[in-house]
């Protein structure tokens, strides 16, 4: 939209996070590691919404927590505004936290049940020693409440007095309180009833427009991601398998996994559902503790070729149509057209 979107605000390079497996009583120490995130690189441009999408265990939430440094990366770099924050100490990170905020998935567990809404939204100011004047701070918090569509009169209520959607608004208000540059939203609507989801999605878009936010939007729901994001990275077992602009990704996915994902999404249109030739993948997502060799998708891939896909790991490269994908045998337009409801080819 603007020139801003050419400047990367966050540059992630070769980010890796391995979790040691804690095992039982006798085989302690023998345990391996979970390859939660395994060499992920991408940029987040100023003012854009980048989507991270994938199924459970793909590492999208871990990636979010690495970027916000709620987790320490095993290796790799995260440049935020030109500065590598991957190895900063907690003390060094504190000032940065003002610029980077998170919205959490579960509106029930993300708000402390023992605190009032006012004190929850005041928290960022108190932690960062801003707005020490109580009256001023209260006014600011009430403005924030108004901004996210909450009644400021409910300042002294506690989270349990609100519905799921309203609670999520409280979480949003807390996240934007310090006017951050980036907001990382981790599955912000997946715990909400469908009729409420749109309220929060619309709110996020509105705030992005008004505040010039950069958003990293994490979700498993491909329809939601499509609606919200400018660019999308599809993750599978700790790696990015495809990265493209939203239109390109949904219009002509190149990675067979992306294609299968799109093909699997149930569409509320019985006619379309009947006519489409669905690609149903076999099996489940393999365990990230023991990911398949070479191309991690080869065990489920309808196009996998023995001797290539299970031997040679494909690298991310530009494919036809501008998508960046890591695949030896990317989808052709004809295959896309048959299976993907969003196909534009």
């Amino acid at each position: 939209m603007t020139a801003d979107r050419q400047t990367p605000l966050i540059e992630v390079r070769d980010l890796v996070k391995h979790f040691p497996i804690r095992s039982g009583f006798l085989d302690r120490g023998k345990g391996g590691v979970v390859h939660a995130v395994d060499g992920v690189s991408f940029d987040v441009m100023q003012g854009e919404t980048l989507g991270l999408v994938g199924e459970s265990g793909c590492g999208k939430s871990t990636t979010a927590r690495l970027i916000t440094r709620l987790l320490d990366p095993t290796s790799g770099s995260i440049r935020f505004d030109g500065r590598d924050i991957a190895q900063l100490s907690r003390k060094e990170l504190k000032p940065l936290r003002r610029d980077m905020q998170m919205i959490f998935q579960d509106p029930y567990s993300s708000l402390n049940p023992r605190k009032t809404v006012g004190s929850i939204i005041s928290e960022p100011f108190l932690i960062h020693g801003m707005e020490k004047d109580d009256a001023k701070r209260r006014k600011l918090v009430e403005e924030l409440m108004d901004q996210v569509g909450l009644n400021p009169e409910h300042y002294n209520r506690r989270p349990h007095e609100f519905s799921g959607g309203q609670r999520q608004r409280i979480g949003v208000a807390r996240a934007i309180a310090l006017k951050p540059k980036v907001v990382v939203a981790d599955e912000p609507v997946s715990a909400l009833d469908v009729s409420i989801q749109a309220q929060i999605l619309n709110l996020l878009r509105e705030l992005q427009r008004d505040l010039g936010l950069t958003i990293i939007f994490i979700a498993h729901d491909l329809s939601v991601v499509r609606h919200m994001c400018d660019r999308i990275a599809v993750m599978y077992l700790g790696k990015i398998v495809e990265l493209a602009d939203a239109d390109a990704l949904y219009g002509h996915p190149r990675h067979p996994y992306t294609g299968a994902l799109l093909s699997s999404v149930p569409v509320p249109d019985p006619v379309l559902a009947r006519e489409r030739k669905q690609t149903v993948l076999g099996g489940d997502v393999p365990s990230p503790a023991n990911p398949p060799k070479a191309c991690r998708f080869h065990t489920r891939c309808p196009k996998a070729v023995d001797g290539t896909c299970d031997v040679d790991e494909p690298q991310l490269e530009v494919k036809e149509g501008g998508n960046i994908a890591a695949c030896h045998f990317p989808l052709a337009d004809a295959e896309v057209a048959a299976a993907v409801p969003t196909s534009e080819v």
Partner: protein
Amino acid sequence: MGVLLLIISAITFLIFYALPSTDPAQLRAGRSGSPELIASIRHNLGLDKPIYVQYYRYVKGIVLHFDFGFSYQTDAPVRQQIVDRLPATISLTVGAVILWLTLAFPVGIVSAVKRRSLVDRAAMGGALLAISAPVYWLGLVALYLFSNDIGQFKIFDGAGTYVPISQNVGTWFSSLLLPWMVLAASFAAFYARLLRSSLTEVLHEDYIRTARAKGLSERTVILRHGVRAAILPLVTVLGLDIGILLGGAILTESVFNIPGIGRLAYDAIKASDYATIQGTVLFGAFFIIVANLIVDIAYAVVDPRVRY
């Protein structure tokens, strides 16, 4: 496990050798012991050595010879005393465990299934009462009411009638009846409550709904699917309780005058016989640790998700 015992032995050693303001040597020498006698006893017992040397000797004795030293009171080896007293304690424990489990299971299950019914309320009220009564008082009341010496209703054998099972099975059994019941009362109550709460929770689980949806009879649902999962917390507690009781049911053994390990410890305390006290404490800790290990194994047997 060995480490745990070592730590416990060190702590008990500290408590019984370093803490007391009374001097063991003096105790041993008796009230009229001359300073020379005390000094020689001290030397003989190694009490004039630094504490770590004393501890080292003590541990070495245990590890190499299973030797807990000698009683200050009787000069008998502590180990022998404990071994002599063990059968009585085992008799008391095993009988009580069987009794309380046979009581607790039906009561706990019925209470959980008929939650808030009259039966449940009565059972749980009684259980709470039983938990609230100290075992020694219950024992005294039971003796006062039912023992065939001083009792108002002469039904059971009284205190101090214990004989080893090898001597006379019938007398052994009848002498232990009252202690078993008294000891089992509060445990049965506790287990019934524990089973009730555990089973109540389990009955809310999704797999219970599945079992019902399969069309199984309510009996199968509760006994096979519910109780099986609900016994898990009981396993832990049972292991610990057996361990503790084997280490000496001090109060019960005192009240009923059963010559078990608890009684031994009690007498040793009365006589400030530290070597014996320490021996029994270590022995008790040993049982608790073994019980814990067995619990861990039992867990893996009950719950296939647990692996070792």
